[in-house]
């Protein structure tokens, strides 16, 4: 039955998933971090520019591409999941996770390279922000990977199918939204840390 008919018949309108509240708050807190970063940058632009040039822009860009590709696969999983093709949705989520795993490898390499060359949280204010912003983002990424891992299991196998499918669709939508937020936040972090001040 088309949506208009359902609404006309008095069926309750489906509410937007409440995870939007979490996403809005989380993005606002990152927004605040970005404002504080830019405010601190104003005080010592030369130091921030010089420090920014020590980061590998190519690796930051590679990670942005990895997360965008992963997000695209997860969005696709959401589309097929809505149509009821849960087997395909599970496969796409698994592919999304496999692609996203590369983000962890690249970030791990970047951290290793920086720490082994003596660049730590206390090196200067830029690197305090670098480790804080990318670290908090990395925690979000890890939580997202756990959520994708749960989604890759598909609907609950023993619960009544109607209930299991409805619940899976809801989780798939919420999980996808969260994963897009992780991707979006990286684009901002990449722009601020790697690009502003780069040569």
């Amino acid at each position, binding site marked *: 039955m088309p949506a208009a008919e359902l609404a006309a018949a008095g069926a309750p309108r489906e509410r937007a998933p409440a995870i939007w509240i979490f996403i809005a*708050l989380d993005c606002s807190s990152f927004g605040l971090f970005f404002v*504080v970063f830019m405010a601190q940058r104003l005080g010592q632009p030369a130091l921030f520019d010089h420090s920014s040039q020590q980061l590998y822009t190519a690796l930051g860009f590679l990670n942005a591409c990895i997360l965008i590709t992963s997000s695209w696969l997860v969005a696709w999983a959401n589309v097929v999941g809505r149509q009821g093709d849960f087997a395909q949705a599970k496969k796409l989520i698994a592919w999304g996770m496999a692609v996203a795993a590369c983000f962890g490898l690249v970030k791990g390499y970047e951290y290793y390279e920086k720490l082994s060359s003596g660049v730590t949280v206390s090196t200067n204010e830029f690197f*305090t922000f670098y480790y804080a912003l990318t670290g*908090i983002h990395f*925690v979000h990424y890890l939580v997202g990977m756990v959520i994708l891992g749960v989604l890759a299991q598909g609907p609950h196998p023993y619960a009544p199918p109607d209930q299991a499918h409805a619940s899976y669709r809801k989780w798939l939508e919420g999980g996808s939204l969260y994963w897009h937020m992780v991707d979006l936040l990286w684009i901002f972090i990449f722009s601020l840390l790697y690009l502003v001040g780069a040569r």
Partner: protein
Amino acid sequence: MNPYRYAKALAWTGVFMLAGTIIFWAILGQNVPPYSAELSADEFAAQIREHASLIRIGMIVQMPISVMWFTWGVAIWVVMRAIEKENGSNSILSLLQLVGAAFTTIVFVLPCSVWLAVAYRPEVMEPKTLQIMYDFGWMFFDMAYSLTTMQLVAFGICVLQDKRERPLIPAWAAWFSMFVVVSFAVLTMMPLVFGGPFSRSGLINYFVEFSLFFVMWLVLDIFILKAIGRLEQEHYTGHASR
């Protein structure tokens, strides 16, 4: 017997502790903001010696009232049990919340005893000894955040499973509290820096994080009190408003 007989009184303990914590821990305890980690040991000791009497009063009262975090946690548990009862009586989340409340109580009590020891006889103590004790108090207070995170994430997930048409606790309050306790992750930066926004007295790790925590506490106080009122009403009218 009314199964919610003591619950409202326990819910009020959350309100009392919130007010008490603002007065005794924050204002009298000289924690708005705390002493900066950038102060030298001598500068720090001079501050402590000047304000020792107020800090002593603050911590002496804060320690016993901190038990109210647990009694309030029991009130939250009552609301969670009512939701869980409608969902097949799976009590894992309410158990996690209750244990989290018990451990968070220690996070309030133990650092206060350390700060009380700092203010006990600062005039005869070495400045560096005072400073390391104070640092220890703050490391424990800030870095044990995962106990509170466990408590309130379990609460948030449970509240989101409420099948009532008008949930006992609104979904936004659940997501807001989960956001606040998850955002505590940024405190991880605190032991790595001395000044700046991520230090224990900095813009992000003190002013933003603690303001969010206190606002969340007030929001949950209000909704837990309302939820217990509704549960009592449901009990006496004999039918759930579903």
